[in-house]
């Protein structure tokens, strides 16, 4: 107990006024705004797919885009909440990505059924995954670096959700940039790798978000 008293004296001496961390909603919004700016700049640089307006008139493309935006929003919110030791005491919002991924799965299922006759498979394959991963690097780095300033008590999940957020930025960009309508290709090279990224994030979180 004497040691504890001595420690309290030491900690008290070190204690200066600190600026409380921003609310997770605000933090999430900041990440979303940065992601929007990043997307806008990239699209200004690389351009949209030429048939983008026509694509938005296809219900399953619009639904897939909306589901992907939901994934982006919910993973950003969840990553922000998971940065706090107590998940800011709004724990249930941290599970929101599950609903968004379920929605994406359902939409992809319907899009698969609607893809009749099937759209031709593009000649490329893993290049899409690589492009998304490369595009996601910057959002992943900035998100994880910001999260390191907090105190996550769920480091593996926080790491996983942060990478999923970054990867969904990349997936969103490629969806509006690349002229591909083959649902098989999309599932195989755009969305299934998300699973691997999520698993990789579990490991990365334990390494990066340790405190």
């Amino acid at each position, binding site marked *: 107990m004497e040691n504890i008293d001595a*420690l309290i004296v030491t900690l008290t001496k070190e204690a*200066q006024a600190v600026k*409380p961390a921003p609310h997770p909603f605000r933090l999430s919004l900041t990440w979303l705004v940065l992601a929007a700016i990043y997307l806008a700049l990239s699209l200004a640089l690389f351009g949209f797919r030429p048939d983008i307006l026509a694509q938005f008139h296809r219900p399953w493309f619009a639904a897939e885009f909306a589901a992907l935006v939901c994934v982006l929003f919910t993973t950003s919110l969840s990553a922000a909440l998971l940065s706090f030791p107590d998940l800011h005491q709004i724990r249930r919002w941290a599970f929101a990505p599950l609903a968004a991924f379920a929605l994406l799965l359902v939409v992809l299922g319907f899009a698969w059924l609607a893809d009749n006759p099937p759209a031709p498979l593009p000649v490329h394959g893993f290049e899409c995954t690589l492009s998304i991963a490369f595009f996601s690097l910057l959002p992943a780095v900035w998100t994880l670096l910001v999260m390191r300033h907090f105190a996550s008590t769920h480091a593996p999940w926080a790491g996983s959700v942060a990478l999923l957020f970054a990867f969904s930025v990349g997936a969103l960009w490629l969806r509006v940039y690349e002229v591909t309508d083959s649902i098989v290709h999309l599932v195989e090279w755009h969305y299934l790798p998300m699973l691997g990224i999520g698993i990789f994030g579990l490991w990365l979180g334990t390494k990066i978000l340790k405190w």
Partner: protein
Amino acid sequence: MQRSLTGDQRAYASLLQETACLLRPFLARRLSFANEVDDLTQEILISIHKARHTYDGLRPYKPWAYAIAKFRLHDFLRAYYADQLRHAEDFDELEEILPEHVTETAFGYESIHNEVQKLPEKQAAILQMMHRDGYTAKEVAEKIGMNESAVKVAAHRAYKVLRKLLER
């Protein structure tokens, strides 16, 4: 906590005192030894100090503090059980030992006295006090002015060296 976030040191000290009082029974229910409770309480207080910027003073304090406490407790237990596993005897090794006289030991402290003298001075002194004079690790720590865990670590290292010496 709100006052302590603005740099009020007195409020902060009182908050940490109260938190320590909250944590001790919480940890005592989950850990076996008083020294472990003390060590972990200190670790949790340091974590609370490091993470205090993640508390804004607008939501209840206890869930926030307990979230950190549980996190550190799990860390501690994970390390503890990993350590237990590392030092666990292999059944194959036990089979080799069991047919022998397990209740009698071939070595007394006196019989390995010469090997103990070959150890570094501090390790030899620790082993002498623990095995010849019958002091506990805590008492040895007090006598030679070391931390109890440091004494245990030094003793453990000495055992390893001794084992090598005796196996030759």
